[in-house]
């Protein structure tokens, strides 16, 4: 598929999720305003970090009175999963020039990555440019929404009141439906992942980011040890 078509397909498919990203961006902007950031600073942070949940956690720590170092560490902990996300993009990145690897790496987010795998699983031609197309839509929208949120902070309602906080949970459930390759392949790794995540969140005081990584890895290891799928 030509580059342009693949970019556009990725951009189109991400749209429902991008609306969610936009709403979350507004919410982050409101938080950033509480931390004393203006629209310009908020937009700059969104462009160079471009990792929504870690920005939210870091700035939430600042608003809660934590120091800058603690805020950064909390944000980094949440981003450890990106290591696994780009590790699984090796086939899409392999053999590309350095600027495309760097662009693809910076565009790596949960949503476009999950969409790409779901599209591939449905037998559609979705590779590097599909992934980047979705990422660019999220990137532009995230910067615009977070800056707008910081400027209009006082006029924006709380997302939870509108049920919007559940939007990503629902979206990931839909994406899981697309990723499911049948019980013979996925029941074991997914079951291990759910069990490890539930046990770690329920039984340990660790930050949920660690549970997420341990669970994702345990499930993948289970699939690897079985050696098929």
């Amino acid at each position, binding site marked *: 598929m030509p580059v342009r078509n693949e970019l556009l397909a990725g951009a189109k498919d991400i749209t429902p999720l991008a609306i969610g990203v936009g709403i979350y961006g507004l919410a982050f902007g409101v938080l950033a305003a509480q931390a004393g950031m203006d629209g310009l600073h908020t937009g700059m942070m969104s462009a160079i970090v471009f990792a929504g949940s*870690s920005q939210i956690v870091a700035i939430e720590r600042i608003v809660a009175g934590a120091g800058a170092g603690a805020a950064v560490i909390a944000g980094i902990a949440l981003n450890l999963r990106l290591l696994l996300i780009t590790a699984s993009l090796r086939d899409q990145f392999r053999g590309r020039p350095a600027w495309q690897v760097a662009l693809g790496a910076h565009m790596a987010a949960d949503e476009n990555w999950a969409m790409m795998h779901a599209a591939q699983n449905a037998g559609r031609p979705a590779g590097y440019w599909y992934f980047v197309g979705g990422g660019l839509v999220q990137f532009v929208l995230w910067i615009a929404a977070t800056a707008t949120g910081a400027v209009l902070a006082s006029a924006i309602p709380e997302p939870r009141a509108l049920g919007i906080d559940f939007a990503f949970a629902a979206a990931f459930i839909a994406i899981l439906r697309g990723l499911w390759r049948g019980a013979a392949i996925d029941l074991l790794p997914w079951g291990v992942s*759910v069990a490890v995540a539930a046990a770690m969140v329920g039984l340990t005081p660790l930050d949920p980011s660690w549970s997420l990584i341990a669970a994702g890895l345990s499930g993948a290891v289970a699939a690897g040890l079985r050696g098929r799928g």
Partner: protein
Amino acid sequence: MAVADFWFITLSLAAATFSLRLGGYLLGRRLPAHGGWAAAFRALPGTIIVALVTVILMRGGPAEWAAALVSAAVAGVSRSLPLTMIAGIGAVVLFRHLA
């Protein structure tokens, strides 16, 4: 927040985040492309997202669990992302109101 703090947080978070993004790829590239390793990599998207949903739901309560069931049912029948999101948001508003 002071301007110096803003730049410290933004630049260190950006540097660490980009290192993780690039580092993951460099790490993944060095691992074998067949057999057990390949099976593990193919399983990763599903195992991470199913863990993410588990963590989100464990922080929620009965309203979120019920809304997740509605979302799963709609996803199973429709296989549509926007429909599942609308159903999930609608369900969580309804169940939170009832709870």
